[in-house]
């Protein structure tokens, strides 16, 4: 049986698929958030050095990881849209941007709340904090550029180019800031193994999975709205039951 890989590359078919998937991702995200928070707050032991404060990690670390990954995913979709001229890729890129910016902001905010009891300061000009802040600016630039161009096709292409330039620049910015100043603790989870307690790991990975599922659910819901908005003059949109009623 030949599978048509590109069936869901068209907004027409993807709209329905996304609509079916959103509840599944949203519900599993909610369940995993509940489990993750329960393990994080009730099961995981108190840290020897940081006391109870370390528990902010369970939201801080997933948010930071996602803010970075989502930028790459966004740039990937943007590149696909620019190269193959597919409408849906560009819509996906602009649907991911607000969620990525949100996670960058949560990461900065929770980092500040964590920094105050640990380092005695809300903000330090440390390498990771600074590069996260710059990542946040890059997201804002993408959103602002997209918003200020009226023609959606031009907006897609211009913002896509910016996202690609940004993703080339992200490693350069990261290393330049890293050499500039380093205070942030290194990552505890390494591929060679970890010194972390097993229940802390469980909580962290559950929260990470929950954040992933949440992002997918939100991005799919947002891309549905973008499809509705952009294709509002087409017949298939006007024949949709939710539009007709």
């Amino acid at each position: 049986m030949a599978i048509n890989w590109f069936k869901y590359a068209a907004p027409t078919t993807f709209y329905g698929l996304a609509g079916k998937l959103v509840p599944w991702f949203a519900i599993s995200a909610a369940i995993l958030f509940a489990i993750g928070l329960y393990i994080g707050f009730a099961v995981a032991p108190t840290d020897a050095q940081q006391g109870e404060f370390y528990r902010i990690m369970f939201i801080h670390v997933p948010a930071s990881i996602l803010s970075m990954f989502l930028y790459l995913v966004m740039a990937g979709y943007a590149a696909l849209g620019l190269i193959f001229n597919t409408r849906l890729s560009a819509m996906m890129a602009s649907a991911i941007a607000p969620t990525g910016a949100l996670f960058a902001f949560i990461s900065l905010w929770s980092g500040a709340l964590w920094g105050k009891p640990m380092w005695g300061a809300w903000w330090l000009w440390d390498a990771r904090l600074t590069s996260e802040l710059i990542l946040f600016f890059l997201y804002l630039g993408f959103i602002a550029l997209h918003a200020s161009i009226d023609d959606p096709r031009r907006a897609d292409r211009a913002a896509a180019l910016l996202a690609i330039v940004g993703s080339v620049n992200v490693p350069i910015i990261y290393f330049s800031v890293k050499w500039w100043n380093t205070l942030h603790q290194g990552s505890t989870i390494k591929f060679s193994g970890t010194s972390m307690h097993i229940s802390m790991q469980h909580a962290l990975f559950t929260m990470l999975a929950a954040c992933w599922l949440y992002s997918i659910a939100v991005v799919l819901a947002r891309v549905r709205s973008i499809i509705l908005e952009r294709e509002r003059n087409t017949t298939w949109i006007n024949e949709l039951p939710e539009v007709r009623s």
Partner: protein
Amino acid sequence: MKKSTMLDLLVLVIKRDLVLAMRRRADVLTTLIFFVMVVSLFPLGVGPELDMLRKMAPGVLWVAALLASMLSLGRLFSADYLDGTLEQMMLAPQSLSMLVLGKMTAHWMVSGLPLVLMAPVLGLQFDMTVQALGVLIVGLMLGTPVLSMLGAIGAALTLGLRGGGVLLSLLVLPLCIPVLIFGTGAVEAISSGLSIASHLSLLGALLVMALVFTPWVTAQALRISME
């Protein structure tokens, strides 16, 4: 008739843009005056202690140079866009990247080079040592072209948009951060007796990378903006 090479084209575009800039000297001077004013405001803001000023000097000069280069970026393509020259350039059989590189070079000669030449005078106001001033100038020589080239991408993307100037800074400033870090890092290194080679080599590497990629990216951005 001699066949025109890429280099002839480059020289031609640079000459043309320089002539245009010289016809409107006020624009060039405004950037330079802005640079001088921003730098002079800092001692008024933070106090006249020479120790502190000496420490701040590289950062202040670099940030002011960064802002001043943003100021003139809006004009990089807009005049040519408005009178249709840019469209003709894109229709020309020659490589658009080369034309763009020419415009970037001219932009740097008009708005970057004067800042580099002005910087030592301002550095003296901040009581910088001769050694530190030398490193600052080398850093600015390597770094300001990168600012012009990265800025050109932003200028091409925001061509003809409302509120283009502010948006342009929002897009370009985060991308310029590595230049700022290595530029000021070199001066701080020489002041504390460390080697400056790594900072300046990295600045050089950024310059080479920008030279290779940014003209092409800017050309693509212009194509997007002009269609």
